[in-house]
């Protein structure tokens, strides 16, 4: 699903990612662990080009999205991302947070079709061979209704439908993060990236967020999770990557990594955190 080929990232003179090659397969749940500053977040953010790689390729569905010439916005729609700090849009209600991107994208597609049809019609007036128009079988209002219904369905799923019209500032951290997750889901992503989704939460709210992520995992969502929750990584991940100093030092199944780490740096790290 995602092929990462010799990915490098530097900030000035600091090389943060030193040549990472890996493949995220469909259905996998990959956990990334490692010490602070080892480049986990940078790696994850390169996967949807939130950070532009300095060199290397990110092949997502056959397209190298690290290439500056591709329209990254189209590909990002299929890669959900969840941040440590939730990053709900503060100026929008919960339901508008969820609806913003799907609604904007669907409506601008409709608008584009209408504009194209206008030019085809114009052309058809002057030329004998008539070109067919693009089919338009929805209206703006219908699209809005659909997107809203889907957003409400997702809100119901996490039991927060009564918060639809609330602003993010009135919610708890756990609620914010669960809404951030379904905001990403509203785009029907093929893969989800999580960057320490529970690190900014009060301990009593960690469970509700991990439960939701676990549900998604059980439904077969492909996911890459940077996490400090070793128990969660062990339980949910199908593969664990241990990163240190900008490289993947060791990767294996959770059982092997946690019970039988091979690399001395992995051993040292795990002995500190477990």
């Amino acid at each position, binding site marked *: 699903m995602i092929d990462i080929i010799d990915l490098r990232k530097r900030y000035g003179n600091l090389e943060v990612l030193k040549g990472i090659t890996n493949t995220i397969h469909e259905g996998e749940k990959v956990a990334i662990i490692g010490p602070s500053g080892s480049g986990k977040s940078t790696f994850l953010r390169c996967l*949807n080009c*939130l950070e532009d790689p300095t060199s290397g390729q990110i092949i997502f569905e056959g397209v190298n999205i690290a290439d*500056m010439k591709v329209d990254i*916005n*189209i*590909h*990002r*729609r299929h*890669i*959900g*991302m969840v*941040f440590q*700090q939730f*990053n*709900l*849009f*503060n*100026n*929008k209600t919960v339901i508008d947070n969820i609806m*913003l*991107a799907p609604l*904007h*994208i669907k409506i601008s597609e409709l608008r584009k079709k209408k504009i194209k049809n206008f030019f085809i019609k114009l052309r058809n007036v002057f030329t004998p061979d008539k070109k067919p128009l693009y089919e338009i079988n929805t209206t703006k209002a219908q699209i809005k209704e659909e997107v809203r219904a889907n957003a409400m369905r997702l809100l119901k799923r996490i039991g927060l439908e009564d918060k639809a019209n609330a*602003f993010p*500032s*009135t919610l708890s951290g756990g609620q914010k993060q669960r809404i*951030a997750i379904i*905001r*990403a889901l509203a*785009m029907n992503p093929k893969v989800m990236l999580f960057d320490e989704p529970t690190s900014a939460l009060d301990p009593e709210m960690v469970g509700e967020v991990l439960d939701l992520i676990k549900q998604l995992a059980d439904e077969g969502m492909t996911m890459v999770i940077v996490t400090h929750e070793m128990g969660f990584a062990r339980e949910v991940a199908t593969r664990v990557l241990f990163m240190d100093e900008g490289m993947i030092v060791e990767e294996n199944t959770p059982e092997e990594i946690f019970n039988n780490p091979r690399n001395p740096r992995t051993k040292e790290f795990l002995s500190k955190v477990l």
Partner: protein
Amino acid sequence: MGNFGKKIEVFWKMFYESNGYTKVLTGLQNTMYIATVGLAIGIVIGTIIAIIAVIPKYKRLPRILDRFCKFYVGLFRGTPVVVQLLVFYYVVFPLMGVKMPSVNVCVLVFGLNSGAYVSEIMRSGIMSVDPGQLEAARAVGLSFGVSMMKVVVPQAVKNILPTLGNEFIALIKETSVVSFVGAADLYVAFNYIGTNSYEFMVPYLVMALIYIVLVMAIALLVRIMERSLRKSDRHN
């Protein structure tokens, strides 16, 4: 003092009985029109410049645009607005063959002028928005422009509303020079009353009072706005 009472009488005659007040109303209307529409144009221009200033500069086009904007801002902040008015009215527009009522020239020049100031205000407003907001919008596949317009700029505007209110006050005060290019503002109205009654003391006093009341009323509105905004932020 009896002298002053006489002056008020003369003024009142001119103001009320000889319909001087219609001129004052026109002047007030022009002043507010130039300041309001000027600020609106300024906000649009300023927002565009501020967004160009924060676009990542990998490509050439944003770099060129940014340099042009910097030049524009430097030009309009670096010269007195009277000079800008005179130059546009007597040099730029005639050379371009454009004929326009002087009030409209004033609106344009004040728009361009406040655009330069608003761009700085807006830029600091955009900088004050958490970068995570833009990242989250980009991460769901919205373009840079759409993310700015739908997520970042609305939050930036909220942060700078009080400062924009002050810019509006500054504009109202600065419009008092529009008579240089023949636009009829408050000064023109009271000057008319003064000239026709050979008596300037009371007219200019009343003019000053009108400006003071205007500015104080807007300052009050800004303060009320500020307070209600702070209230809505309290949950954070």
